[in-house]
């Protein structure tokens, strides 16, 4: 193992290469630019392809082609680019193609700005494109976690034949942290893909990559098959981090950068005698609802911290299901919550005695 200093965006790229991804398609957008810069250099070194597409619409459809041909493939963008990709993501889901899509989120709506934000939570976990579907959504909170999670992302995509989304924000993408990297990379084993449309090569029956089910009964069957798969994913792949939760009276929660801020607030609050704890969802879908339900048995209140006007808080409220009050503190449009402001909110809530 060796320790290197790496930017989050570069870690996404290196993680992808170590996970066996050799085909990247993308379109320039800030604040994820270091990722395509890194892969434009690295991909040819490992015999891979880095291709700059004419738009995000095209990138995601190139991914559709590469994934359907049976290859580990990915694209990445930031918020407005993800809006453009939603049609393609829906097709990838419909055709049950594995791939990884990265969103390094920035301030919105509209052109917004290039500052870090988490306003695409709904888009990521509630569908985003047309039709009934879910994506597996991973939310790392450190550069090390990014690099480890890229492997998980590709593995889950292949195992369940589904697009997997990894969400970060401008801070996670831009900041540098030391990461442990294995010196020798052994390429992971990729499951066989007998469904891939890559030329008959002796096979009798053609493979067809398709999301058209013209007969409603057949299309309903696709939806039911997808949701049966989602049940398995929810049962087996839900991931989260708990921190000082056992005796917590107030439970802070958030994901990604917001969770790091909340975690530091937990320590500060504890040092001032407030029993605070943290739940950090690592998979935003499937959402770790049961952890909240369990915590609601002993905690008095929840505080959801987000870099948005309040999106994940809706899932927290569904999980707590009215048992305890769920409060919200957020900054949006590229503004980042300050630990001191979150701490003040915690103190205010604790003084309120709810």
């Amino acid at each position, binding site marked *: 193992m060796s320790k290197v200093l790496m930017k989050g965006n570069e870690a996404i790229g290196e993680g992808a290469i170590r996970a066996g991804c050799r*085909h990247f*398609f993308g379109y320039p957008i800030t604040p994820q630019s270091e990722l395509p810069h890194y892969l434009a250099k690295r991909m040819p070194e490992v015999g891979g*392809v880095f*291709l700059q*597409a*004419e*738009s995000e*619409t*095209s*990138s995601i*459809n*190139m*991914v*559709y*082609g*590469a*994934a*359907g*041909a*049976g*290859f580990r*493939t990915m694209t990445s963008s930031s918020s407005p680019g993800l809006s453009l990709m939603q*049609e*393609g993501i829906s*097709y990838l889901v419909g*055709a049950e193609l594995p791939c990884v899509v990265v969103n390094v989120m920035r301030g919105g709506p509209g052109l917004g700005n290039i500052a870090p934000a988490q306003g695409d939570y709904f888009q990521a976990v509630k569908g985003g494109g047309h039709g009934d579907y879910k994506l597996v959504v991973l939310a790392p909170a450190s550069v090390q976690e990014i690099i480890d999670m890229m492997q998980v992302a590709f593995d889950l995509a292949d195992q369940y034949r589904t697009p997997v989304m990894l969400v970060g924000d401008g801070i996670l993408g831009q900041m540098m942290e030391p990461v442990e990297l294995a010196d020798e990379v052994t390429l992971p084993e990729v499951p066989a893909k007998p469904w891939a*449309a*890559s*030329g*008959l*090569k*002796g096979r009798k029956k*053609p*493979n*067809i*990559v*398709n*999301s*058209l089910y013209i007969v409603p009964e057949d299309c309903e069957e696709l939806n039911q098959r997808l949701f049966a798969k989602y049940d398995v994913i929810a049962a087996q792949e839900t991931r989260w981090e708990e921190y000082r939760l056992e005796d917590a009276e107030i439970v802070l929660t958030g994901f990604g950068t917001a969770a790091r801020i909340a975690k530091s607030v937990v320590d500060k609050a504890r040092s001032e005698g407030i029993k605070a704890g943290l739940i950090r969802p690592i998979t935003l879908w499937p959402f770790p609802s049961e952890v909240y339900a369990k915590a609601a048995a002993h905690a008095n209140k929840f505080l959801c911290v987000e870099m948005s006007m309040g999106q994940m808080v809706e899932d927290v409220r569904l999980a707590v299901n009215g048992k305890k009050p769920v409060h919200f503190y957020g900054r949006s449009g590229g503004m980042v919550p300050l630990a001191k402001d979150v701490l003040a909110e915690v103190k205010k809530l604790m003084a309120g005695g709810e």
Partner: protein
Amino acid sequence: MAKVIFKRPDSLTDKQFHYCPGCTHGIIHRLVAEVIDEMGLQDDTVGVCPVGCSVFAYDYFNVDMFQASHGRAPAVATGIKRCLPERTVFTYQGDGDLASIGTAEIVHAAARSEKITTIFVNNAVYGMTGGQMAPTTLPGQKTTTSPRGREKELNGLPVRVSEMLATLDGAVYVARVSVHDPKHIVQAKKAIRKAFEIQKAGLGFALVEVLSTCPTNWGLSPKESIKWLAENMIPYYPLGVFKEPAEVK
């Protein structure tokens, strides 16, 4: 002993076409399949079909197939070809798909000189959705969304895709053909074959535009449609080879 002198190409399945009577999609499908057969490519060809009348082409071509979202077939084909450079990859697209919603994708696939073959079927109208005006609809042509005939002031004038793409250095072979009579069908097949040969030779992007009929949405009989194509489409969309690399001339 009976001798087989005419049969279905191996690269077509035995599934019955859903196309309307007098539509020339069937002829064009057959030409593409014959070329794939004759070049011995059935085993390593991957096709990409569009959204539009030929959306079900994956049921007809007896090769591995993709169904792409509207207009995006050239991007999907790019993804496939960049993973499988040794395979033969083709897109089959109509004029709504390629010349309207998919203009960015076809222009940039050509500009990058992707080593793919595009069969572009131009019948001057949206078929599947009910006969709406296409970018290729002729001036004055009546459609369900140009009920007074296509008006220059309101809708502009048609896009000549082959001429436009031929201006790109990356488009190495561009030809426009028609399938309205046997002589032209023979010429169309030669162009389609050349477009596949160029891909096999690794020379770059090749496109064949095929003028086609739509009796249903033109409101004409199959016989009248053939005549209408010859008399109205060919004058606006002249047949010929617009680009051809020296290697295959």
